[in-house]
């Protein structure tokens, strides 16, 4: 019965195998040769890559190209376009009424605060949680929770916290007798940017913590134990074993923090929309203002191009700095 179930093709293959037990002429070898032929043919490679290439070009390259194209025009978004060359770029860097330099300064300040406040905090949490402390998973979830909440919800939450009348911050300050410290946090030019930064830090510290925590957890236990046996303290283990080990992840975190600050938009849009009087304006809010409020699609596209250049530039710079250190 079993013999009857075997097809003639299989029988022939078994016969070939019995004559050539080394398998040099096996069908698998033939397939290897065929695959090698396919891989060495550039046209075949192109065909295999085409779906991903189309997706990549359509989603990433084409919009960048379109933004670059529109940045050379004076265009309302509808109707005729007028080619003006680099005039938008010149105006962007020289016009006080647009205020791009101020928006850029605000973004860079956010980037600095992210790198020197948010990341150390995230690293501290990651190192602490990476030591198998009690309730590690619960703490991980708690710190990561703000990342999962919608930014609009977080914005509304912090709007309530900062409300000058009933906001918990001012109420608390009044309760403890610090009435003079109360402020119109989001309405005062001097406090608005700081007030916007706090929820940003709160929201993304968990994200960086999780990245770094994964790195801390990947440090081989034997390295730690060897250092401990040699009498190293916790701080020394972190300084000389863990930090060098997770440097690639630190680099990624720094890149994410800096580029994230440069393109920050949603939370600022909800909290202040760039106000009061442009005190919290960042390039992204300025871009939306130009595109949809002022109908200046050419200028909006110019800001988009500058954002892309800045993000790529900073990513390369940070990578180079880390490489140099290595």
């Amino acid at each position, binding site marked *: 019965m079993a013999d009857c179930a075997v097809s003639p093709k299989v029988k022939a293959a078994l016969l070939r195998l019995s004559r050539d037990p080394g398998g040099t002429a096996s069908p698998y070898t033939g397939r290897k040769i065929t695959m090698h032929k396919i891989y060495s043919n550039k046209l075949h490679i192109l065909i295999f890559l085409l779906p991903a290439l189309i997706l990549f070009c359509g989603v990433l390259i084409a919009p960048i190209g379109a933004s670059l194209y529109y940045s050379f025009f004076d265009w*309302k978004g509808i*109707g005729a376009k007028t080619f003006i060359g680099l005039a938008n770029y010149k105006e962007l860097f020289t016009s006080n009424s647009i205020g791009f330099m101020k928006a850029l300064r605000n973004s860079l300040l956010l980037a600095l605060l992210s790198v020197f406040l948010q990341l150390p905090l995230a690293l501290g949490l990651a190192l602490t949680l990476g030591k198998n402390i009690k309730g590690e998973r619960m703490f991980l979830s708690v710190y990561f929770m703000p990342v999962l909440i919608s930014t609009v919800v977080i914005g509304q939450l912090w709007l309530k916290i900062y409300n000058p009348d009933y906001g918990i911050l001012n109420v608390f300050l009044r309760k403890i007798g610090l009435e003079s410290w109360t402020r119109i946090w989001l309405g005062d030019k001097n406090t608005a940017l700081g007030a916007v930064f706090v929820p940003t830090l709160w929201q993304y510290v968990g994200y960086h913590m999780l990245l770094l925590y994964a790195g801390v957890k990947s440090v081989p236990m034997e390295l730690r134990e060897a250092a401990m046996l040699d009498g190293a303290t916790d701080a020394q283990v972190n300084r000389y074993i863990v930090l060098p080990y997770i440097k690639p992840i630190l680099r990624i975190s720094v890149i994410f923090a800096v580029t994230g600050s440069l393109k920050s938009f949603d939370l600022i849009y909800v909290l202040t929309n760039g106000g009061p009087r442009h005190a919290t304006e960042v390039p992204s809010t300025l871009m939306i203002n130009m595109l*949809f*409020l002022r109908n200046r699609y050419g200028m909006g596209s110019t800001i988009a191009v500058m954002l892309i250049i800045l993000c790529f530039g900073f990513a390369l710079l940070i990578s180079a700095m880390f490489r140099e250190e290595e």
Partner: protein
Amino acid sequence: MKKVLAIALALCMVFTLVPAAFAADLPTDEDITLTMWCIATESDANRPAYEKAVAEFEAAHPNIKIEWEAFENQSYKTKIKAAMSDPNTLPDIFFTWSGAFLGDFAEAGTAYCVDEAYKPFAAELPEVMLQNSTYNGHHYAIPLTYNIVALFANMDKLAEVGWDHVPETFEDLTACCDALKAKGIIPFGCAGKETWCVTEYLEPIIEKTIGYEELGKIFAGEATWNNPAIATAVDTFQDMINKEYFDPAGIALGNDEVKANFLAGKTAFYQNGSWNCGEVNDAGFNAAVALFPVMDPAKATYGQVIGGPADSLAVSAYCKNPELAAAAAFELGKDICHYGYLAGSGLPAWTPDYDTSAVKPIVAAVADIVAASDGMVLFGDTAMSADPANTYLDYVSQVYGCDIDGAGFVEGLTADLG
């Protein structure tokens, strides 16, 4: 002869019915869906008017379905402009503000000319109501309501400091504000987070200082901002801010929060659009409505107002059946106006052909103010096109934050806008 006369009369009757037949020329033999975007969100005062108008339209035309979506005011401005860059994504009918906002769409050919569709409705909709949506002699939108900037007052609060009427001169207004302050009542609330709310205070002050004709010319770009009287008006406004007539928290608040403060009795006055009439009327306190007092009687009168027909429906030139959509938009517009007027969310752009005895007292008071008005200037940010309007709003916001004074305001706007 009698026969000829009878035939002539019959023909006349037939011809007079033609426009009405045209107005109702909406096909009923095939299922049609028209899409519409508007800003009548759940919390919008106009929401019930839209709901009733759409329901009534669908009942009258069972084969036509209106699929409509409402978006929050500020995000709608972004959405509609984004849709304009790819007109195929536009709905058949869309809400728009007239003036320069719609002007860009008309100029680009994305808004459909409604001249033909208007003819059957001309008797019910005075042509003057279409003046803000008319470009190069052609009409591009159907006005719904018209609104003015009104000074709403909580008379219960004013009574606490001995006032039984809204002050009609600036001296009286300042005296009233001082008395309110002394009593611990904040006179005004103004939303600094939404700069258009600041213009609701600043524009009437400028208008009552330089006169509506001059202000209208400035908004239209026919006169210069370089006018010392404007600087004086701005300084007057800032003087009111410095005297703490305004709730200091207002600078960080949006309009909804500031309005809620007024409706809850935190502030005594609230100067904003007459679309708030319904809510003020139903607030539960004794409310009154008036205009901002005259600052310079040589140039302005009490009856000069800021406002006009701005809220409108337009039709996409790219929709499948623009004639049908335009006819539908006129029918919808008429009903939205009707129910909106009765609910107190604006004054009627259309001549009422229904019982208006149920109109709320505050709405009726605003209607009386408009009937007695001496002149009207459209809201500045609606009258100006997008880029200069936002430059203007930038300077207004700096004035409210006291970053610049009247001279700085005039100097900056003269340099940027002429």
